[in-house]
């Protein structure tokens, strides 16, 4: 079972991101679950979203999770919420920040000794999509770090989940995914 926890603000697209990932993974025959805690359900409020992926049918509906991956798509949440809660020694963090990895860990000592990757999804989203919607770039970074799918395969599948958006926005999302894939470290 692969388990992912997203830290986001309501309106940044974590739920869409989690559902998009579930959609892509489902096309490869795996079982998926994507859900969220809406908290106070106000735009801008801190929230978490979740993915489960498994070869077998997923029966577990508990909200409690020891995540394999933690995605942080808003840079300030590293300071205002505990993104390390219920983690395990092998948990991998992918965090949106404009800081270098060392500077980030210095600013948030809880990340010391953990496997941390950084990428500026906000900047990437602004420069490609034109809005600070950092969900799809996070998935590009995740493809690089996890090696889950070939990036071209992933982009093609992801594009199918975005068919409701105008073609220009779809292409911008593909650029965002590719840039995060290239820039995450």
């Amino acid at each position, binding site marked *: 079972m692969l388990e992912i926890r997203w830290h986001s603000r309501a309106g940044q697209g974590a739920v869409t991101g*989690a*559902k998009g990932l*579930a*959609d892509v993974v*489902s096309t490869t025959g795996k*079982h*998926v*679950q*994507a*859900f*969220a805690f*809406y908290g106070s*359900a106000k735009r801008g409020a801190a929230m978490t979203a979740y993915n489960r992926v498994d070869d077998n049918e*997923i*029966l*577990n*509906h*508990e*909200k*409690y999770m020891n995540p394999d991956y933690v995605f942080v798509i808003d840079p300030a949440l590293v300071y205002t919420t505990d993104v390390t809660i219920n983690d395990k020694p092998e948990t991998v963090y992918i965090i949106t920040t404009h800081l270098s990895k060392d500077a980030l860990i210095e600013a948030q000592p809880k990340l010391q000794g953990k496997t941390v990757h950084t990428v500026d999804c906000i900047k990437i989203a602004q420069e490609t999509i034109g809005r600070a919607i950092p969900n799809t770039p996070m998935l590009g970074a995740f493809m690089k770090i996890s090696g889950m799918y070939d990036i071209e395969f992933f982009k093609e599948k992801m594009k199918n989940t975005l068919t409701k958006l105008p073609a220009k926005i779809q292409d911008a999302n593909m650029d965002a995914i590719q840039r995060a894939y290239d820039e995450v470290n």
Partner: protein
Amino acid sequence: MAEKQELRDVEVWDGNMAASQAMRQVQIDVVAAYPITPSTPIVENYGNFLANGYVDGEFVMVESEHGAMSGCIGASAAGGRVATATSSQGFALMVETLYQASGMRLPIVLNVVNRALAAPLNVNGDHSDMYLGRDSGWIQFDAYNPQDAYDLNFIAFRVAEDHEIRLPAMVHQDGFLTSHTAQGVHTIDDDTAYNFVGDFKPMNDMLDLDHPVTHGVQTEEDWHYEHKARQHNDLMTKVFPRIEAAFDAFEKLTGRRYNIVEQYNTEDADAVVVCMGTSVETAVEVSNELCAEGKKVGVIGIRVVRPWPHAQLVEALKGVTAIGALDRSSPNGTFGMLYNELAGTVVNGEEKKVVTNYVYGLGGRDLTKVHLREIFAELLANAEAGKPTTPLQQLIGVRGPKISFH
């Protein structure tokens, strides 16, 4: 003619989308609705389908849930296929009209996305609203995941509209845990789905002007009791055979098997938990893990809450010593509904059973695998001792000192 949708064999849908797709596929004549969290997307998606030409029927915007069910009752009495969706406070406001719908024998389908009842205000999932409806004369189906929410809608229409039955049916799903959780759902193509339910066949419809009928009459002590007795009799005797037949036909069509009482690892089990909603699946996962450790624990999921599956439970509980009834609703001054109903079901049997009650998950509080392991451990101790080793009722997952009674 409504346009058709091409669905993938497996769509990643949350429970709300699963319910709205089923509603689209059966081509409802009238949906009267007043959206409320967490069932809002059912109505929203359905409105979308309608606006985009995928539905031929009428969508009536009303001023309240009382109005929504009243609209459904009028449309159903007029002679159409009718459905709506609600949750929590909306369900509570509908209660008066729920009894009208069942008493008038109108086959309306109501998707209830289960949510806590205020106060304090809470939008998350528990079973308070489902329990509120349990004496209303409706058939109540319970889904454990989005796939069930999709499938049980077809079953509900087929059973409710059967001329031998003519009773309204609710399809319950857990707020957020099912309604907002996207999972793979095996789809049925539009024609096959529609044909499983078939064309709506009116009965005593008010718009059949050649055969005038009266609906919603007054009966005092002369006839009221006979109407209620007949309705109760039909619920007690006619509904289960029709549900069984629908489950059989559905299995033949899709390969997916539903049972009035779902059993998991119950053969040879010393102890079982009995629960509803997503908790059934989480409990099954824990039961699988414990069985692998050599512990004899199983899970019973209630698939049909009303009518109460007394005979099916007597059968399912044969050989089981300890039963944990898990209620996701505050009993407010007594034992939980499942405890009381199960105790009533097993009390006259020959085998000695130990029944205890766990209240959990109110207002969306998480039911964890750790909780379930603790419950199974207590139930095994009860089975071993042949009597309760814990208080009869315990609240689990609540902050502060342990709360238990009797």
